[in-house]
């Protein structure tokens, strides 16, 4: 669907002398929140640089908001916001002064820059602190200022490079909530990167996974999880069936369902269609077991990738594993 694309790349390749940072990457990203996930060195930041028109691609093309990154970088940067992954704030100026300056650098007249700065800092949750020098801010506050400077000129798209980096779990949830609001409340599309597999699934409408500069997957978050939705069932044992869990597993397998053992005494059944509910009910009734609970279970993205043969290095990156544990 041309016209609704926010970001479109075609065979995008970036080769540095020693590594290929992007390898024939073709993606088409629409409005909404898109998570760009990949291990460190996967090429996420390189993609952002090319999209902003700051580094030339070796091959291929990239279009942002319908404009060519290679030739219309200035026009793209006027309507796009960028939040870098590293620190970028001078410690001896206040958030207000800094964001006003950045708003003017984006082309906003003086008065508009002031007003938008006040609004934006309030939206990211920075209040009295905004008049103090930024050197004394916590990591969470600094991340908010970095986000504010990316939003202050009311861009149509923001590129957020690892915005949750260095935040504690509470700060991370707040940041993710803020990112969600950027789209739902502000109407701004978002491309957000993370090296944590499980982190962005609740925040994003669409997930793009890259590994070693290549596209691994690009699909909606819903399809990631729905495709593999399953039921988790827990039953009682009975005199006839001292191992109720085992009996149910066998019975459902007999009926042709894909059954696996879950944590504790849980039985997981692939819920391909509605028929599974009837089958479970019948199986339990036939065996004379008691149903303790039955719930819909959506796979976490991390688990999806663990099952995939070409999984991004989930197995050997501690961060990715941490994300996956938290998700299970």
């Amino acid at each position, binding site marked *: 669907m041309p016209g609704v694309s926010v970001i479109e790349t075609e065979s995008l390749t970036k080769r540095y002398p020693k590594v290929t940072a992007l390898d024939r990457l073709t993606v088409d990203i629409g409005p909404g929140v898109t998570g760009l996930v990949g291990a460190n060195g996967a090429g996420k930041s390189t993609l952002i*640089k090319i999209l902003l028109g700051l580094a030339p691609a070796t091959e291929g093309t990239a279009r942002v908001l319908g404009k060519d990154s290679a030739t219309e970088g*200035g026009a793209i940067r006027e309507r796009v916001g960028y939040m870098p992954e590293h620190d970028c704030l001078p410690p001896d*100026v206040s958030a207000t002064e800094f964001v006003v300056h950045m708003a*003017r650098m*984006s*082309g906003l007249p003086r008065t508009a820059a002031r007003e938008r700065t006040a*609004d934006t800092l309030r939206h990211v949750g920075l209040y009295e602190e905004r008049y103090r020098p930024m050197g004394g801010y916590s990591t969470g506050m600094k991340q908010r200022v970095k986000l504010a400077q990316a939003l202050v000129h*009311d861009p149509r798209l923001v590129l957020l490079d690892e915005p949750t980096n260095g935040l504690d779990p509470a700060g991370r949830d707040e940041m993710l909530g803020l990112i969600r609001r950027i789209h739902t409340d502000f109407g701004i599309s978002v491309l957000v990167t993370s090296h944590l597999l499980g982190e962005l699934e609740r925040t994003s409408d669409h997930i793009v996974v890259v590994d070693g500069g290549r596209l691994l997957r690009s699909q909606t978050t819903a399809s990631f999880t729905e495709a593999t939705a399953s039921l988790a069932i827990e039953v009682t044992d009975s005199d006839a069936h001292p191992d109720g869990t085992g009996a149910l597993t066998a019975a459902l397998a007999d009926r042709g369902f894909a059954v696996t053992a879950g944590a504790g005494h849980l039985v997981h059944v692939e819920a391909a269609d509605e028929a599974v509910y009837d089958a479970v009910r019948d199986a339990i009734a036939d065996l004379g077991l008691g149903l303790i609970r039955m719930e819909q279970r959506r796979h976490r993205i991390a688990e999806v990738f663990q099952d995939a043969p070409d999984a991004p290095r989930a197995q050997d990156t501690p961060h990715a594993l941490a994300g996956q544990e938290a998700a299970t």
Partner: protein
Amino acid sequence: MSTTPSTTPADARIHDIGYRSYEGERLGAMYARRSLLVHSLRGAFGLGRSARAKVLPFGLFAIMCMPAVVMVAVAVTTGLDELPIEYSGYTMFMQPIIGLYIALAAPQMVSLDLRFKTIPLYFSRPIDRSDYVSAKAAALASALFVFSAIPLVIAYAGGLLAELGFTDQTTAFLRGLVVTAIFCVVHAAVALLVASLTPRRGFGVAAIISVLTIPYFAATAIMAVADEQGSTDAVGWLALFSPGTLVEGIEARFFGGEVEFPGEVMPSAAAGAAYLVAAAALTALCYVLLTRRYRKAGL
């Protein structure tokens, strides 16, 4: 109150907590570059920064103005028929103070952006690398000019007050401003390049002082030796080897300044032409190297 009067819904103030989109003007790269110039120029005097950041620039500025004030006071009270120092000579005479100020202002202008990695925030906006470099170079040259030219304005006002002759004073004053402008443009380019090579402000200050003083004293010393040995011609040519002597040569040759070189012999016309070419070439070279340096300092 509202920046977007034509498009903001009338009830925007009621739902004040909601997000307001911006439909106003976006003034683009030229405006951004001008804003960066003004911002950096103010920063060079510590304006918009802490009170502590103002102490050194304004302290040096006070020292810079002191001789002019004294000169004027003396001229007015004792009725001299000319100022003790010519306008163009004033800038040359005050080179050490101006040099200190350059060493302070240039790193302030570029090292902080490098050190705190603010550069990517600039380059992710409409301005590009050459806009950044030209804004910073113009800001530093302007800061130096303000710093050095205001004492001349004080002296000029005093000269008029002491009724030293309007035409003479005005031509000498304008000549002084031109020499000062040349001095500022050349020195700003050199100092900014040196400052951009290190994110550490302290290193930047030391490096700029070295680059401004070592060649200057080396050139002057060799000129003295040449003069002793009777090669008066060589003295003029040796002035090419430091930015400071270069501008002194231009001042003497083209703006009626006194020759302060060892031997006090006026440089030849050929040497004079060489000064102009060298000053332009040095400035251009520093500028090209600066732009190249920022090509690598991307995100």
